[in-house]
């Protein structure tokens, strides 16, 4: 049946899953280790978020099989990502765009 074929190549890559697993463990260790090193406040944040994004990407792509998913699912997720980013940045921007000479803190 068709869905057997579409999943066939995933069922053979247990090695692939294990590789992702160890990468995630390593990523966790790395992010904890990096948090004890002072890189300057903003760079710590950037590094932690980058590592988190890489780990999330691995989970989504390989564990959740997004790498072989269909266009329909990609479209829904792209739309969601766009709106999530919009919500986050526009809210932040709105609360930090002040008229000139506004005093804060």
């Amino acid at each position, binding site marked *: *049946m*068709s*869905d057997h074929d*579409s*999943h066939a190549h*995933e*069922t053979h890559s*247990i090695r692939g*899953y*294990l590789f*992702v*697993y160890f990468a*995630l*463990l390593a990523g*966790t260790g790395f*992010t*904890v280790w990096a*948090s004890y090193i002072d890189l300057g406040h903003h760079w*710590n*944040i950037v590094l*932690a*978020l980058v*590592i*988190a994004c890489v*780990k*999330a990407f691995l*989970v*989504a792509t390989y*564990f*959740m099989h997004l790498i072989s998913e*269909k266009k*329909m*699912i990609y479209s*829904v*997720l792209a*739309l*969601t*990502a766009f*709106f*999530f980013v919009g*919500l*986050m940045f526009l*809210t*932040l921007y709105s*609360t*930090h765009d002040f008229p000139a000479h506004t005093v804060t*803190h």
Partner: protein
Amino acid sequence: MEIPYTSQTRPDTGLYNAKVGIWLFLASEVMLFGALFSAYILLRVGAPPGTWPHGWLNVPLGTLNTLVLITSSITTVLAWVALKEKNFGKFKLFHAITLICALTFVGIKSFEYRDKFMHYEIQLADGQIADGHFESATYMDQTSTNHTEHIEHRFRGISYTSVTPSATNDYSLSSVTIHGHKVQAHMELMKHANHEEMKEVEIPGAAIKSMQNYGPWHNTYTAIYFTLTGLHALHVIGGALVIGYLWLLGGAMWKTDPERFTNRIEVSGLFWHFVDLVWIFLFPVLYLL
């Protein structure tokens, strides 16, 4: 007419119904947690400099929880693979590990929550602040002034804003003993305190202006911490319940419609991976930054 594509994939989309359904649901969950993360960023960026706490959470425990969830993630995938290979026994084994991981996660989280509820900040009358974990309290029985009763309390509630005799129990707080330290200014509490400085501190009741534990009400950091991790934990429990249900009672459907059962394991697995994904962001954001 039967509902089509419950197990078979629809030719033009290549998907079966529940798979579309779960991804849509996960999209809405991204917006849910996304809104909470946006709230976190807004609150943190909006906090005056030096007023946002650091190091209030136990990093080793958080790291352990992260490893636990990552492990449960791979066992989830392997459980599904086992079903694809028609190996029901292996599926049972892997998802048993998944469930044990879920239980472990919730257990560790409960321990962490309790730790926060036992951690008190005590404003003293002389302007200093005592801060530490609750050890014991002594109460005086108001009905007979010379009678003092010593009560060991395990969990004592939310906050004391004043320490006058309360209407309940006719007891007034005679003294509190915490395992912690005293600081001069509130800002000093925002940084992770050294363990070496911690010792037993006994505070007489009369010296206490107010007392509050590190629950969600304590400040916006604890508020967003409890809300984010609490909602996440509810999702862990929910996911575990669904996987547990399928694990316990799946044998029947495996016999009558193995493809449909495999799809259910895939769909519940997708939810579980999402729960792991959220934690992958929660952990560094709350524990490390």
